[in-house]
């Protein structure tokens, strides 16, 4: 996996002028599979939230992980890298599926090399 993007840092808090509630991440973990639905924008300000939401995957070690990104309007390279890191914790023979990434999101996934480790479904 290549790591081409470089986020300079992460901000501590969501700044006052960014609308809260812009991002909703839902995680459903069942016996053998996990599904993460990401609606909104992923950037430096949401890094902490993304970490918390992805962390149950480490314990669950699902055989099948679905990332539903149909509602993901933006993703920065740091967030893509973080998702790639989370995928390292699932068993080697797990299936990781990214559903419906937009063109912009898909481009970032390609840049970070994340697409090489996942199946991408329903790309535009």
């Amino acid at each position, binding site marked *: 996996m290549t790591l081409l993007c470089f986020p300079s*840092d992460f901000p*501590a808090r969501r700044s006052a002028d960014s609308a809260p509630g812009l991002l909703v991440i839902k995680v459903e973990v069942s016996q053998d599979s996990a599904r993460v639905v990401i609606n909104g924008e992923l950037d430096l300000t949401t890094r902490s*939230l993304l970490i918390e939401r992805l962390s*149950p995957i480490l314990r669950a070690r699902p055989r099948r992980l679905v990332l539903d990104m149909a509602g993901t309007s933006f993703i920065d390279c740091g967030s893509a890298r973080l998702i790639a890191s989370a995928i*390292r914790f699932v068993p080697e023979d797990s299936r990781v599926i990214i559903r419906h990434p937009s063109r912009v999101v898909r481009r970032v996934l390609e840049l970070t090399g994340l697409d090489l480790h996942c199946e991408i479904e329903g790309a535009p």
Partner: protein
Amino acid sequence: MTVTTEDVRQALNELGRLRFGEMRIDEAMHQIVETTHAIFSVDGAGLMLADGEHHLRNAAVSDERVRHLEDLQIRHQEGPCVTAFDDKVMVGAEDLTSDRRWPAFGRAAVDRDVRAVLASPIPYNQDAVGVVAVLSRERHPWSGEAELALLAFTDLAALLIASMMMGEQQTVLATQLQNALNSRAIIEQAKGVLIGQQGLSAHAAYEQIRAQARAERRKIAVVSADLVARAVREG
């Protein structure tokens, strides 16, 4: 020696083959630190987490020198890891003999064979809870690739820590970190009080609280709680 993207990729793939999910958290952290040390070809790597006193404590180290780093930063209340943790940015010091940002710490560190440090804050809960750091006994310029590599290891550490904090297992580390988060909350409130009352910057407010705690030999969280309580009483 420079860190290449290919080195990082390989190292991360090897880490990925470990069964992280089945390991104890401290073992997993130790693996991350060992791999970080190896990939950087430096003289030490460490993972530090804050405690209730706002001090960075070693959770996993690959070399004795990292213990020096912990001691010296606590003693002098400054250093690259402290700055990275407080300001939540990656901090690099390529040569502590000439770096003026942490004069007392710098001199003491060079005496103990620590000359260059790169520290990356670990994000959790909209804040920083610790740092991942590498150090060298020689002068060492940190490249963009090195920073990027350290970020990749920081991501793994952050995910592990979040998983630990959200898990049910009550480990010593989890308890330490929960204390740190609780005290951090009250310290932040006290900073807010001073900023409002005296128009200080966030950094100056924290320095003032810390100085008071040291002068009165009280815990920083206790001093902060007093400040907040007084502000509430005085409305």
